[in-house]
């Protein structure tokens, strides 16, 4: 804008200024009828003031600047004209050079067209040279310089120095933690008495450098069972006949029990079907042939009885006399009861022997029960507890039948899986709760469709 304004001013100051397009000027000079408008508003100024001449003039100025790099009027004559002194030899030399350079050196015409032909320099993009947060960064750098002067290095540089120093000495600064299952991991003496901690215990506690003491209760095992239960002697690969039979019997009993339970369940779940008897088949065959006698319903009678039954709401009021009588009766009863008790107590003196016998009997029974309970509690210690949704399922006994037994160690076929055995052992010792594998439930039905390629082949 400033440039434009300057040119306006310059143009106005030129006395002998001749516009290039004089024809346009002539057109504009056609007299128009003025329209009356309010001049108190800028809107109407803009709308109705005729600035075409000014604009044309300015366009002309721009054109001149573009084409020649300034106003022609301002130019010196040297730049505008030259003295024609005839042909020079330049042409020949130029032609030679072009021939030498060949086709490639010549720029394409399209490129030439696209070249900016304006003589005015493009304005500088100020934003491109501006630095964001320049002030802040300047301050930061100033501060860093100040710190550096004091001998404090930034963290990154410090680390870099450390690293370079370590590399020089052949040690790595940061040890990556070794994975727990790394086969080459190192072990050390864990239980050696290290240097005793001298720091303040409160400080250690607060900074979480000291671990919380493990309660002793947690070091007790949840079951008294041994970690590895050795199989019965019948489980030997080459067992003694009788111990093998013992084991087989045990397994057999377990199986029997299971079978019984299964049978019971089947029995309970069986649908109680009516079996066709002769009578029922006959009935079926003749159904509808014989007129059925209509049985009169006897329900209404029952209903009436039901309605009659029930407590009567109204009770007659007792008279004074009745009340007194009842009270006397009550007192009498009570007295009789007390008397009876006294007599009984006296009588008990003669029953001493039988009483003592019964007391003894009772004591004996309680003792027996106590002993039983104790035994049960002991047994409980080695029993799997109910720790979750599922009960512990005793695994099947690993047994080989007599004809399965291997004749030699070479031909032995191992029975059962030790992994499963271990897993069950952990469950049995109440270390983990018994669980079952989560069943996969598909939420939506699968949809099958043939691939197009496949269909095409068909």
């Amino acid at each position, binding site marked *: 804008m400033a440039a434009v304004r300057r040119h306006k001013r310059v143009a106005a100051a030129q006395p002998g200024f001749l516009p290039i397009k004089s024809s346009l000027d002539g057109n504009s000079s056609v007299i128009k009828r003025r329209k009356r408008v309010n001049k108190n508003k800028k809107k109407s100024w803009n709308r109705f003031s005729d600035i075409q001449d000014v604009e044309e003039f300015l366009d002309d100025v721009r054109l001149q600047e573009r084409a020649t790099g300034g106003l022609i009027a301002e130019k010196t004559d040297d730049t505008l004209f030259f003295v024609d002194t005839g042909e020079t030899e330049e042409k020949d030399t130029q032609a030679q050079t072009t021939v030498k350079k060949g086709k490639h050196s010549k720029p394409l015409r399209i490129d030439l067209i696209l070249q900016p032909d304006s003589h005015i320099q493009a304005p500088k993009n100020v934003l491109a040279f501006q630095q964001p947060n320049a002030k802040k960064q300047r301050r930061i750098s100033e501060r860093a310089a100040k710190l550096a002067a004091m001998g404090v290095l930034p963290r990154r540089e410090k680390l870099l120095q450390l690293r370079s120093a370590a590399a020089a000495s052949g040690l790595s600064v940061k040890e990556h933690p070794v994975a727990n299952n790394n086969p080459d991991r190192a072990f050390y003496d864990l*239980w050696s008495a290290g240097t005793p901690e001298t720091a303040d215990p409160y400080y250690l506690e607060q900074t979480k450098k000291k671990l919380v003491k493990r309660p002793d209760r947690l070091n007790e095992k949840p079951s008294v069972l041994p970690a590895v239960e050795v*199989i019965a002697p019948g489980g*030997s690969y080459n067992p003694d006949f009788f*111990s093998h039979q013992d084991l087989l019997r045990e397994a057999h009993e377990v199986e029997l029990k299971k079978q019984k339970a299964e049978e019971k369940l089947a029995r309970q779940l069986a649908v109680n079907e009516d079996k066709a008897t002769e009578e029922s088949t006959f009935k079926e065959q003749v159904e509808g042939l014989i007129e059925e006698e209509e049985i009169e319903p006897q329900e209404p009678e029952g209903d009436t009885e039901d309605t009659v039954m029930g407590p009567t709401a109204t009770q007659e009021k007792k008279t004074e006399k009745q009340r007194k009588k009842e009270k006397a009766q009550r007192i009498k009863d009570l007295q009789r009861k007390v008397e009876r008790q006294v007599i009984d107590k006296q009588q008990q003196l003669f029953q001493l022997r039988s009483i003592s016998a019964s007391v003894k009997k009772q004591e004996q029974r309680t003792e027996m029960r106590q002993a039983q309970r104790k035994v049960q509690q002991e047994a409980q210690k080695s029993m799997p507890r109910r720790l979750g949704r599922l009960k512990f399922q005793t695994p099947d006994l690993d047994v080989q039948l007599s004809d399965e037994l291997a004749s030699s160690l070479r031909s032995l076929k191992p029975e059962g899986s*030790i992994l499963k055995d*271990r897993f069950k052992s*952990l469950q049995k010792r109440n270390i*983990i709760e018994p669980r*079952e594998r989560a069943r996969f439930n598909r939420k939506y039905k699968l949809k099958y469709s043939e691939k197009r390629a496949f269909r095409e082949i068909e």
Partner: protein
Amino acid sequence: MGGLQKKKYESGSATNYISRNKARKKLSLSLADFRRLCILKGIYPHEPKHKKKVNKGSTAPRTFYLLKDIRFLLHEPIVGKFREYKIFVRKLRKAYGKAEWSGVQRMKENKPAYKLDHIIKERYPTFIDAVRDVDDALSMCFLFSTFARTGKCHVQTIQLCRRLGVEWMNYIITSRSLRKVFLSIKGIYYQAEVLGQTITWIIPYQFAHDHPTDVDYRVMATFTELYTTLLGFVNFRLYQTLNLVYPPKVKHTKCASIKYMDLHISYQKLAALSASLARTVPSVEDEEAELDHFPAEGEDLEKMETREKMELEQNKQKKLFEGLKFFLNREVPRESLAFVIRCFGGEVSWDKSLCIGSTYDETDETITHHIVDRPTIDKQYINRYYIQPQWVYDCVNGKILLPVEEYFLGVTLPPHLSPFVEESEGDYVPPEKLKLLALQKGEKPQAEEDEEEEEEEEDDEDDEEEDDQSEDEDEAEDEASLAEMEEKRAQGKSLSVKVTPGKVKPENRMRTEQEEKAEEKRLAIMMMKKREKYLYDKIMFGKKRHVREANKLAAKRKAHDDANKPDKKKKKKKC
């Protein structure tokens, strides 16, 4: 009286327990992480006494933990690591999704890891505690080391388990602390005595795996993680106690070759179990710590004597195979046999093509025992026994070198008895075990053989007529032997009382002592309270019943043997 009415489930057992889900939320962990944390820290679920109260009136079965336990878990630094790992996984997944491969690489390099050292220290405050609990760890490690690389667990875990297992076996060999072995249909049970602790573990047979589907592999892997750490530290300490180099190295005789020996090969040699380990302090091999003698009196003296005897016996057992040279044919379980033989001082080798670490060839003339598990073998050397592998195990369990005749090639083997059965008095004892007991006392083997020879001779002479007779004789002999056995056992019991033969009245004194004791017992029985008497009677009745049953079984066995005898004889004749 008075005051506010107590509300339900605000005190007592309802507040002492916390359900699993609540605990999980309190720790803000996923279920899998919570489970892992509980396993690592040794926090077990608890069955409350009053479930309905704890469950706020509901009777639905749930898993409960003690609230105090969960509060204790809140302080565990590993919880933070779990969360870190969760975030790591999330970031990694995101990077994968965006295909930022450099980011993936960087993240993988900085994968968060945690250590269980402090947990081990916390759970096992002393070394002995850890040794006591190493059974589980061993079984699990040996089990995992046999897994194939099927993706059921991490390959590194398998390798670590194998390494720890090999280290442990080498320790047992060097310390010679194996006591019992039992070949079962499941796997091989071993029992060792380490630092006074009896440790039992099971090793599966090789190539015996099908992966069961109803086992939670994640849980098992967590246990293994804990147990490998535990076993590693235990191994380190155990090696230290024996002045062995840890990580173990094979002791080398030729100095030149070692330098060039690859690390991998040395590990494999270690795993072959045929070479002894290098020590930090070169020590004399046979240093036997003599038991300290203190002047003692009375009972202490007796105890001392028994202990000394035990010690002697153990030392003898430790050198069971010393001086014997074994050669394993390729069809026998190499690792197990090498382990057992080396545990008792024997030398062992195998075919070069079978495994690394064989020390001598089959053609070696000094081999005393050749272990074969096939019916016949073509080329036999005359100066060695060809025996079946069970002989080795039975010798270990019997604590003596058994006669090899019953274990020759193609011979029907005697039953492999479980060494883990401790028969109490009056139990049924299989006759094979009786024989073994007799052998252990070093009295019977000759007689037994004679018997058999006699039998055979008789058989040769006449066939059917003599059968009944010989059986009768057998029975008589058996009975006699049984009676002898009983006597010996009785003697063995009273052996702790020392009797010097030179004195005049020892027997009388003993008798009077015994009488006195009997009298005392009788009186004690008389003086018993009624309920004690009742209990005592019950116990005695139970014992008698036990004995009766045992007798019945023995009789049955004899009947069975008798029934089988004619068959056996026929077989023998055919042979």
